[in-house]
């Protein structure tokens, strides 16, 4: 007869990056949430979608740099989005000290892992186009959130098309 393994949470086992938590209770935990406080890093990356999520906020659209959108399972830029990105490039030229993070997002149809990879392609396509317009690549980073941080959760084309986007966040 084997022993039954004791399971407990991994809440504190890691101390990584901005997450610095001390101690690790090795007791079994079977429920989530419930009034615990978790300290996340503050500042640093402005209003990126993950930081907004951690603050309990929904995603944002626009800002000084406009979002661009994609067809289903595609990462090539649509012609109307090139003019949007040209306007973004102008803003970046006028704000030469600004650095941006370009986020790739997907709608929820399809596979989590594939959508993360697809989001990375979308962010990269936007970055590449901005580089072609003369913006230094070292001013731009990319990240993919796949289908994990959607703007909306309705199951219709209007919502899906909003979620298939590249969103640019100005870093401080």
């Amino acid at each position: 007869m084997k022993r039954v393994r004791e399971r407990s949470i991994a809440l504190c086992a890691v101390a990584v990056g901005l997450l610095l938590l001390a101690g690790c209770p090795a007791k079994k935990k079977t429920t989530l949430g419930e009034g615990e406080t978790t300290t996340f890093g503050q500042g640093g990356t402005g209003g990126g979608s993950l930081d907004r999520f951690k603050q309990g906020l929904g995603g944002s659209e626009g800002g000084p740099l406009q979002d661009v959108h994609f067809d289903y399972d595609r990462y090539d830029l649509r012609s109307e989005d090139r003019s949007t990105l040209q306007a973004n490039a102008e803003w970046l030229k006028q704000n030469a000290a600004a650095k941006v993070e370009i986020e790739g997002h997907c709608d929820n149809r399809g596979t989590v892992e594939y959508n993360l990879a697809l989001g990375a392609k979308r962010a990269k396509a936007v970055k590449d186009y901005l580089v072609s317009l003369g913006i230094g690549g070292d001013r731009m980073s990319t990240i993919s959130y796949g289908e994990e941080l959607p703007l909306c959760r309705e199951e219709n084309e209007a919502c899906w098309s909003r979620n298939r986007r590249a969103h640019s966040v100005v870093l401080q």
Partner: protein
Amino acid sequence: MRLQSWIGVVGLVLMLSAAEGRAQVTGRIVGPGATRLEIAVSPLDGAKGVGDRFAEILSRNLTLSGYFRVLEPKAYLEGSAPTDAGQINFANWSTIGAKALVKGTISQSGDSVSIEARLFDVAQHSQIGGERYSGSAERLPQMARRFADKIMEYLTGEPGPFDSRIAFASRRGGRAKEILEMSVDGYDVSVITNNRTINLAPSWSPDAGSLLFTSFMDGNASLYRADVSGRNTRKLSSGRGLNLGGRYSPDGQKIALSIERGGNSDLFLISSEGQVLKQLTNGAEIDVSPSWSPDGQQIAFVSSRTGTPQVYVMNADGSSPRRVTFQGSYNTSPCWSPKGDLIAYVGREHGFNIYTLNLKTNQVHDVTSGQGNNEDPWFSPDGRYLVFSSTRVGKPALFLADTSGQQQVQLTKSGGDDTSPSWSPRLP
């Protein structure tokens, strides 16, 4: 006597020959709605509460297996005693329609229990098999799952898969997506991550002692390993970009994963401690979601190299990639069966559905047939079942199906947004 069960490429089972004066029970696959084997599961004799609990958990697992219809305990005419074939009044059981019967004894001493559980052939008045278990009382559910697996072994020649765990991603605690893991019967759920961010794509180590998963807990999509005890979490691959879909090789020595740097995802092998060993793919298009063949010689994966995502198979050193899915424009999430014969995957045709590809015959079988969107299939350790997520009842919940799809059972409630299940190997 001939018993038929709905499942079973494996002909039933009972290797007890009539010549020895015992039952000969055989069966074969038949259509949906086919007779399940009627079984009565008597509470164990000797300790009321725990004896009933054992019967309840055993009954749940036997029902999930699809082989059995557990008869309603209220109908039982005989108590939990006697438990010997020579003393049981089998007419009490054949009268209510039982073809098989579980009885047994339990004794409790302090925190420990000792169980003897037996399976009987009602028509033949004979014992088919029996097992003894002892240990701490909190192991009782596992003893019941082990006996369910044993009953399947008596009757099909192969142990059942229920002494195992299913890990998955869930939003049941709120907005965050965390990794949980549970028994297949759902009685016992525990939390692996609780960092209030996005955690996804769990997969088990071959010893079922730890899980790989990808987490945004520190901002980047890094690959982590967490012991199921929750005591140790370790970052294994954390370069800037995606570190995704980690899957242990069958020998536990290596991990295949997809790594994205600067926009493009390729497959890599890293050591179990995170050291990069080899790049397996090197193309301009997406390569993700590796799944090892059970012999560790090949890897199935998803590539968009022809313009749409399709399932490929390559040698474990990255050589000789070949495309294996050709129907439709979206085939993802491959999972190689533990017997090596099938690859389950998700295809986008009339919504998202689970398919299996037979690698010998190239036959494709639609397991879920358009009941909501179905994703992320994972084989049970015996290869007879698939667990997957489905939206057929609303938000994604986990479902269990036999590989034919004739029986599909909901395992978790809808509303928790349960996705990305990974079925562990049998527990050691």
